[in-house]
């Protein structure tokens, strides 16, 4: 632990800290371009010079390249250093174009800041400037190479940190070029991070091109709602339009980066079809009328059929406050017919996940620093993209990554892959729960046992499971396995990927409540007369869409609160518009049980771009903002419960009623969040039905998530439409040969739920006997929902 | 019967006359000030409404009356509404005891040209000028604004400090005329105005009066470049108007006080008494305006130091000397 003196302040830092970081810990920001906390130092920009007065090194040196040592005395602002930095800035600027006014980085440009800080105002170099051609890097990233200062941050991010292969540096001398070998979209699903790391305007957000300046944006710390990891983001909005998202730093979860789904999935907030007014039938009404209608109806049902005729459904998209008040409201009405997930199997899996002991669950930070990770039935890029990046960091440190999955799981690293048929997974997990055992009943169990022994030998092992593929039983087994595989003196941490950003919170609150299956039965039997969906979309999320539709059709009243035009909204008798995540404050509990608060970024309203059709704002005075009807669901619920809509109060109440949420009231949005303190009870599970024997022409149909197009909200984002794929089915070459099919040709997929024509793709990494179909909303296969029991299907030539 | 009626008629007549004159004067004082200041700064001053701007006061009145009357959120409503009235009323009430001419013969009786010749007129004037602080301080305090509050506090401190000096300056005059009645004070100056007899007292009184009127160079309570507008920052419309008129009424009151106590009241050659009185008051007013056009504002600490360290000791000294002189003269 060296102790050194920087600018007359003394600090002790851990061994291996460089001087730049040490200064930062003292609150002294040494100007720099190429150093980045997540990327490390390369000493390319020469800006971070400081003067070493005493100690092992002397003179002007790069602070990012010198490790802190005892007895160093450092001056970060001596005359020599300032003159040196001014010089560096001046030569970095010799080739820089004169185009700040048309550059989207302006206002958040490090080069601009450093140039001003360095006092460089007038260009002395009179020679010609070097220029480059730009490239088309796809729908997300705009490229303007003339602005580059060769700091190498982009390459280090893209290739080293994110594992992308198609973007790099070319050229010699002072003709370095940062780009692809030829034009084309960037392939990495983390390409958006280039926008954040590039200190100049070379790589900027194309979806935000020329929209605003940072000083005009309304920004606030927020959470990404597009998967269960809950990465920290900063959305920016202007003129009632959410215009971009960028990564926020949370060392426990995402670190410094986010995935492209999170970054470019913001468009759902501005969607032109978003319903923004309360509807009674299909007639627009005022809030008062709608609320009165709701209260009258519910009152009537209570009188006529008893409170058991009212049921409620919330979802993993709803904030913890909304879920909690939904529960309070159901209690107040006297109805126990309440659940928090329309997909029964996902519901159960989330309840299992919420029963893991908080100190055994793995955070993304734990995964980045693990030395062995086993993924069973988890496809990070599809189900929780940033997990793939975390695994890559572990692998870069030498961790062993093992993927056991029937699907062709792609990761931005080399890893061990074991294609296991879906029915093998339970057996492998079985083996994992008994690593010490000598004799195993099957080869799969044997394999599981071997993995378990490897985990036992590791220092910081992690076991990761996907709840969709494993199901509740599998999840429970995985938790048991993690317990069994804990090495002495350490724990094997576990992580389960869940369906949505607040699945965990819903599972905590649902106790032993019924699942949506039970509610549906009630509706079919006519016991339940009304359903209130709070930010839930049962039509699209329940695995059997026909059954769900039929049951909903029997209802006397279907009430929907939502912020998107979902399939359920179309059927609603009474509709209340709610705010999107960015338009209100709240809390989400991510898949490791971390409660994270988010702040309100801006007030709901029709984006000016839409209301004025691209022209100037209307020329009249008015107090109303068009389209500002949406209200946070929890405030409406508070009103229905007859209380003040104060977030603080709701949080405090929840904390008081349920001590597992201790710390909720003190949570701030820019903190690292805190874990729920105790697990919920493990749910009682019914044994899974044994999967039937496959006839020779039948295959197991696996419906899975896809990086783009599966998640409801990001799929509504126009920016992601360009990268959404057409529906297809993946088969193993063996099966293709057996069934005499041709790759790339359309085939017919026949199941008990229906028949579809899809494109056939072949993949050798897939487990034979399995057909994998990604869920793609808004396409022919949108009724196929992942997370269900594997189905049998037939595939024939179309 | 007839007598009572006559008395009432006379009183009403005097009241009407004084009120009308004084209010009109106050209104035109505003115009005069703006005009004179304008010319001193080589501008025209108001010259659009009426001939050469003569109807400007009327226009201002209409403007003030038709403006929205704002009451700030969080203000103490009643006090806020009352304060301007206090400040105008105290100024108006002061005229009750000011003798503006010698007694005249009317309907066969001697009518003194003063509304009410109180025996303790001087004390009454003092009491009212002390009350005037009340309006300002309350207004500043009730506005729920830091500028107003600071203005009000400054006004209070300043007026209380200078009242002391003012009292000390009047004492010799009262001693010399051996009466608290203002008429008696004037009559005592038939031959020689007190200004000559008590020059030091006159100077102290002049400065104190200027401070009391809260005008440049003593306009600390409303110092616009520090406090926006001081105690009346939050006022608008006619309520502001009342403060405004109150200030100019005060100017006339103080001018009258100066005239009565030091300038020999209505005494003067040739012209009738009332005219002399008016001329003297207007002269004092012009002097005040002239001072405003010439001197810059003092600093707050200078103001307080001057009051307490110079004026009060000087006043005491003057009082001692006068007393000694009177004892020596018997």
């Amino acid at each position, binding site marked *: 632990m060296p102790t050194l003196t920087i600018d007359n302040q003394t600090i002790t830092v851990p061994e291996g800290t460089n001087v730049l970081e040490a200064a930062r810990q003292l609150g002294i920001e040494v100007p720099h371009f190429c150093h980045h906390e997540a990327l490390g130092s390369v000493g390319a920009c020469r800006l971070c010079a400081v003067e070493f007065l005493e100690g092992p090194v002397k003179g002007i040196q790069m602070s990012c390249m010198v490790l802190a040592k005892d007895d160093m005395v450092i001056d970060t602002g001596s005359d020599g250093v300032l003159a040196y930095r001014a010089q560096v800035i001046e030569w970095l600027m010799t080739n820089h174009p004169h185009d*700040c006014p048309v550059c989207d980085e302006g206002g958040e440009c490090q080069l601009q800041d450093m140039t001003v800080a360095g006092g460089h105002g007038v260009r002395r170099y009179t020679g010609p400037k070097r220029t480059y051609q730009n490239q088309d890097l796809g729908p997300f990233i705009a490229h303007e190479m003339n602005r580059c200062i060769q700091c190498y941050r982009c390459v280090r991010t893209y290739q080293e940190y994110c594992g992308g292969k198609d973007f790099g540096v*070319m050229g010699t001398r002072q003709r370095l070029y940062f780009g692809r070998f030829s034009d084309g979209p960037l392939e990495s699903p983390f390409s958006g991070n280039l926008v954040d790391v590039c200190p100049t305007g070379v790589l900027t957000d194309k979806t935000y091109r020329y929209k605003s300046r940072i000083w005009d944006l309304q920004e606030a710390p927020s959470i990404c709602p597009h998967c269960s990891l809950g990465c920290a983001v900063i959305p920016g909005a202007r003129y009632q339009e959410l215009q971009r998202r960028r990564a926020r730093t949370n060392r426990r979860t995402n670190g410094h980066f986010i995935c492209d789904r999170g970054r470019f999935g913001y468009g759902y907030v501005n969607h032109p079809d978003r319903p923004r007014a309360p509807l009674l039938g299909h007639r627009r009404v005022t809030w008062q009328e709608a609320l009165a209608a709701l209260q009258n109806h519910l009152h009537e049902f209570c009188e006529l059929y008893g409170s058991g005729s009212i049921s409620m459904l919330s979802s993993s998209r709803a904030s913890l406050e909304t879920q909690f008040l939904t529960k309070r409201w159901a209690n107040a009405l006297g109805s126990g017919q309440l659940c928090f997930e329309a997909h029964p199997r996902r519901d159960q899996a989330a309840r299992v996940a919420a029963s893991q002991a908080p100190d055994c669950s793995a955070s993304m930070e734990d995964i980045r620093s693990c030395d062995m990770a086993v993924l069973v039935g988890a496809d990070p890029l599809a189900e929780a993209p940033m997990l793939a990046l975390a695994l890559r960091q572990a692998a870069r440190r030498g961790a062993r990554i093992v993927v056991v999955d029937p699907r062709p799981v792609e990761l931005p690293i080399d890893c061990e892959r074991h294609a296991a048929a879906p029915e093998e997974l339970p057996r492998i997990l079985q083996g994992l729960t008994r690593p010490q055992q000598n004799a195993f009943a099957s080869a799969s169990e044997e394999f599981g046992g071997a993995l378990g022994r490897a985990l036992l030998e590791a220092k910081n092992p992690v076991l990761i499971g996907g709840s969709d593929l494993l199901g509740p039983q599998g999840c429970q087994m995985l938790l048991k396995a993690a317990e069994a595989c804990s090495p002495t003196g350490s724990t094997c941490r576990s992580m389960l990927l869940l369906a949505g950003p607040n699945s965990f919170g819903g599972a905590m609150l649902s106790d032993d409540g019924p699942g949506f299956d039970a509610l549906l039965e009630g509706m079919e039997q006519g016991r339940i007369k009304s359903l209130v969906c709070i930010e839930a979309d049962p039509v699209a999320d329940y695995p059997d869409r026909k059954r769900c539709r039929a049951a909903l059709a029997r209802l006397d009243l279907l009430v929907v609160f939502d912020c998107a035009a979902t399939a359920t909204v179309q059927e609603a008798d009474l509709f209340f518009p709610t705010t999107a995540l960015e338009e209100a404050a709240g809390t989400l509990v991510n898949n490791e049980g971390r409660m994270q608060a988010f702040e309100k970024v801006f007030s709901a309203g029709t984006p000016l771009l839409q209301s004025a059709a691209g022209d100037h704002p209307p020329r009249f005075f008015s107090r109303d903002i068009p389209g500002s009807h949406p209200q946070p669901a929890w405030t409406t619920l508070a009103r229905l419960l007859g209380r003040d809509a104060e977030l603080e109060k709701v949080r405090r109440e929840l904390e008081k009623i349920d001590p597992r949420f201790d710390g909720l009231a003190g949570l701030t949005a820019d903190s690292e969040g805190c874990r729920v303190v105790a697990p919920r009870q493990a749910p009682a599970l019914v044994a899974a039905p044994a999967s039937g024997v496959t006839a020779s022409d039948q295959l197991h149909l696996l419906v899975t998530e896809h990086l783009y197009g599966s998640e409801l909200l990001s799929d509504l984002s126009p920016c992601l439409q360009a990268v959404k794929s057409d529906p297809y089915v993946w088969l193993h070459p063996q099966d293709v040969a057996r069934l005499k099919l041709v790759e790339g040709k359309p085939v017919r997929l026949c199941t008990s739920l229906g028949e579809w024509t899809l494109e056939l793709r072949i993949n050798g990494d897939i487990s034979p006997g399995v057909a994998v179909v990604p869920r793609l909303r808004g396409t022919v296969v949108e009724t196929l929902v992942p997370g269900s029991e594997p189905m049998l299907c037939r595939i024939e030539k179309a | 019967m007839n007598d009572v009626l006559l008395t009432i008629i006379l009183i009403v007549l005097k009241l009407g006359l004084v009120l009308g004159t004084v209010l009109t004067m106050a209104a035109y004082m505003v115009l005069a000030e703006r005009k004179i200041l304008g010319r001193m700064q080589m*501008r025209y001053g108001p010259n659009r409404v009426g001939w050469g701007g003569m109807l400007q006061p009327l226009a201002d009145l209409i403007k003030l009356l038709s403006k929205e009357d704002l009451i700030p959120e969080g203000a103490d409503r009643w006090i806020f509404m009352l304060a301007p009235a206090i400040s105008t009323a105290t100024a108006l009430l002061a005229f009750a005891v000011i003798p503006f001419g010698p007694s005249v013969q009317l309907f066969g009786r001697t009518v003194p040209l003063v509304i009410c010749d109180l025996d303790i007129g001087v004390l009454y004037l003092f009491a009212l000028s002390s009350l005037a602080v009340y309006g300002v301080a309350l207004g500043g305090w009730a506005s729920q604004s830091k500028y107003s509050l600071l203005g009000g506090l400054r006004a209070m401190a300043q007026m209380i400090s200078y009242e002391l000096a003012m009292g000390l300056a009047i004492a010799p005059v009262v001693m010399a005329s051996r009466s608290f009645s203002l008429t008696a004070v004037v009559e005592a100056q038939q031959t020689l105005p007190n200004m000559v007899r008590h020059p030091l007292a006159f100077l102290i009184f002049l400065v104190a009066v200027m401070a009391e009127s809260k005008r440049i160079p003593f306009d600390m309570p409303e110092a616009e470049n520090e406090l926006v507008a001081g105690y009346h920052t939050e006022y608008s419309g006619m309520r502001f108007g009342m403060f405004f008129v109150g200030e100019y009424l005060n100017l006339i009151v103080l001018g009258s006080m100066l005239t009565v106590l030091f300038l020999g009241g209505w005494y003067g050659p040739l012209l009738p008494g009332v005219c002399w009185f008016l001329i003297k008051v207007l002269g004092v007013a012009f002097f005040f305006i002239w001072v405003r056009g010439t001197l810059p504002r003092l600093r707050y600490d200078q103001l307080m130091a001057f009051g307490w360290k110079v004026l009060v000791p000087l006043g005491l000294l003057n009082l001692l000397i006068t007393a000694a002189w009177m004892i020596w003269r018997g």
Partner: protein
Amino acid sequence: MGLWKDIKGTFLPFWVTLRYLFRRPVTVCYPERKQPPAPRYRGRLVLTRDPDGEERCVACYLCSAACPVDCISMQAAEREDGRRYAAWFRINFSRCIFCGLCTEACPTLALQTTAEYELATRELLQVVCEKDELLIDGCGKNTEYNFYRLAGIGVVAPRGGNPGETPPEDIRTNMP
């Protein structure tokens, strides 16, 4: 001596103001007599065009950031040829204090002040000016500056084709 100076300093000004009381005012009576404003007078703002006749404004938001009273608003957009321009641009002259800070901030010399100052009206919306009312046909005070020819990115000329630029580098060669 100091006291004497103070006394003189206090009383001499009275003589000065008294003398000034009888001088002719230097101001003029406005609507009857109008004085031509100085060339650099800061009156109503206009958006100018560059020597090629194109809009100079690139909607960089700098003027709106510089404006102390927030009276400029706009939305940037991109033309097919890559030129950045203002889809709409609004100045609310009922708020403008004619400080000219926006014109100082403008990097393209698009926004310029004019000598027009008679803007008073009872109809507030009349002084909320949109781009078509602000844009003039001409260069204003500077007839030469053309941002896109000096910016170093290719919009009005092919990349590397503007003065002071070398042609684009060939990234596929390692030859010097």
